[in-house]
């Protein structure tokens, strides 16, 4: 057991070190951009999972938080005439916006379950997209620009990379803390049987809503950072249905409801998508690939990469242990049986 913990700590340490060195090793702008977006999607997928993965309430409306975080910081920066790096002072605002929107959103949507919940989240998503199109303050179809940052291209890429890396580390830490906590146990009990959990004393609505608010706040923050990075927002890019699908796919692919699953999902899918986009130079093709990948995951890895591999590993370990037990506890009867049936399982194992 202890060895597993040490191994895991080493892995996390190595991953963090690699992530920290990455922008120094690769100063190519395209690679830095890819690093930025990969980390951003790790934040989004892990944040999505700590609500949807843990509770089983699949949200396809998280772009509401993403877009709102971006739009609100954009509007405030414009109206207060903030320039340059001063916009970063608005990041707490993005966090608050995500949390505040999650409260009424959650109170409405979390009254219903399963498919109905999914449909409600999509509906609320489109309401927000329409508001971005039609309200005066959002700039309509022309969108908004963020204040200009007077940084050179490499410095720009590196700074944003580290900002989003810090956010990613924080988000994964929160997800990990929740997963092992009483709160996390309540969330997973709600996923398995909400009514039964409620009858055993889990206060389902406040518990679900808290997770939704945490998830929404982090997603709002991610939206603001994304906006500062690409410096322009449009109704269709801020409130983007593909964002919801991508984030859900990443979590499904890696393993819904695990800590590392959505992280791995984003780490694999985002670079692939970025590469395809860049190589083929055809925005629609990468979406088709994404859709096909979604189908493959549902068909062949319905529980995701991490649980499937984890189960394989633990069943392999169990088999090895039971073999060791068999070998240790040879009784007279067993000897006879083994002689009768030829080489035992151990001999077969080594022969292969």
């Amino acid at each position, binding site marked *: 057991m202890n060895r597993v913990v040490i191994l895991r700590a080493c892995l996390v340490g190595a991953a963090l070190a690699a992530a920290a060195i990455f922008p120094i090793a690769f100063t190519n702008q395209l690679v830095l951009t890819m690093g930025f977006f990969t980390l951003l999607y790790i934040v989004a997928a892990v944040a999505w999972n700590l609500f949807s993965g843990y509770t089983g309430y699949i949200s396809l409306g998280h772009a509401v938080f993403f877009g709102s975080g971006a739009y609100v910081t954009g509007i405030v920066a414009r109206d207060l005439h903030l320039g340059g790096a001063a916009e970063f002072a608005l990041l707490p605002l993005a966090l608050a916006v995500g949390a505040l929107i999650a409260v009424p959103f959650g109170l409405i949507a979390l009254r219903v379950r399963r498919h109905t919940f999914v449909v409600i989240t999509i509906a609320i998503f489109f309401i927000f997209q329409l508001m971005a199109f039609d309200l005066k303050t959002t700039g309509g179809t022309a969108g908004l620009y963020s204040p200009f940052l007077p940084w050179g291209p490499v410095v720009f890429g590196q700074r944003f990379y580290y900002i989003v890396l810090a956010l990613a580390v924080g988000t994964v830490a929160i997800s990990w803390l929740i997963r092992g906590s009483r709160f996390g146990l*309540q969330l997973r009990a709600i996923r398995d049987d909400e009514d039964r959990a409620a009858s055993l004393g889990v206060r389902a609505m406040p518990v679900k809503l808290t997770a939704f608010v945490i998830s929404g706040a982090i997603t709002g923050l991610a939206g603001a950072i994304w906006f500062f990075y690409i410096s322009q927002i449009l109704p269709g890019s801020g409130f983007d249905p593909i964002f919801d699908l991508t984030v859900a796919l990443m979590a499904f692919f890696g393993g819904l409801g695990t800590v590392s699953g959505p992280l791995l999902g984003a780490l694999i899918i985002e670079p692939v998508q970025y590469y395809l986009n860049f190589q083929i130079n055809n925005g629609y093709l990468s979406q088709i690939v994404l859709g096909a990948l979604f189908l493959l995951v549902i068909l062949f890895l319905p529980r995701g990469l991490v649980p499937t591999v984890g189960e394989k590993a633990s069943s392999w370990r169990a088999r090895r242990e039971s073999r060791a037990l068999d070998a240790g506890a040879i009784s007279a009867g067993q000897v006879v049986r083994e002689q009768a049936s030829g080489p035992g399982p151990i001999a077969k194992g080594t022969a292969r």
Partner: protein
Amino acid sequence: MTVLLRTEGVSKAFGGVQALDGATIEVAQGSITGLIGPNGSGKTTLFNVITGYERPDSGAVYFGDRAITGYSPQRVFAAGIGRTFQLTRIFGRLTVLENMLIAAQHKSPGHQVRNPLARAGGAADRRRAMELLEFTGIAGHASALAGTLSYGQRKLLELAYVLVTDPAIVLLDEPAGGVNPTLINLIGDRITDLNANGTTFLIVEHNMEFVMGLCQHIAVLDYGTVVAAGPPDIVRNDPRVLDAYLGSATDDEQDE
């Protein structure tokens, strides 16, 4: 004899079906009481009414002196009435131990102000959970996902996690249904042990051998009404009970 749980004239209709029609039962403190009756006679509905999963159309439920009619399932459980389901309701993707910890929430009165990010289940909760798993014989599966347990083991797990809060009375809905004979004996033994320590039981069960061997008192439901009640030997030979199970000439006429 003190009555721990009592229903008084409970009626409940689903559309045109009168599931319960003035059902009145009494469960004595410290007893193992059986609730039997043919399929569709309203046994599970009565359980649902008692534990807050259904609201009765009329009638009342008393727990001790307290009227608990229309309480939510959560309040009923908190009051000290544990309940298992005919088709067990466990948390399949939580481990067996985690199932136990979910049920342990109610135990400490200040559970709402405890640090939510604290590790799930304190040392005391875990120790108690493991004790109960030992008691029901599934401690060896503590770290397995509950969904991988056999049907009989699930029944044992559900019994174990209902016991976490030390309920005054436990309602068991077909504890022996679909379970192999060895496990049936184990479940029966555990019920007897718990009863000896003061837990009251109300049991719905079709396995007559199990019910007659275990219960000191039996109530028979038919068409939502209690048609007979008393010790097993008397109930067994009551003509109204035979009517309920086998039907009779007069019964058929009434139907038509």
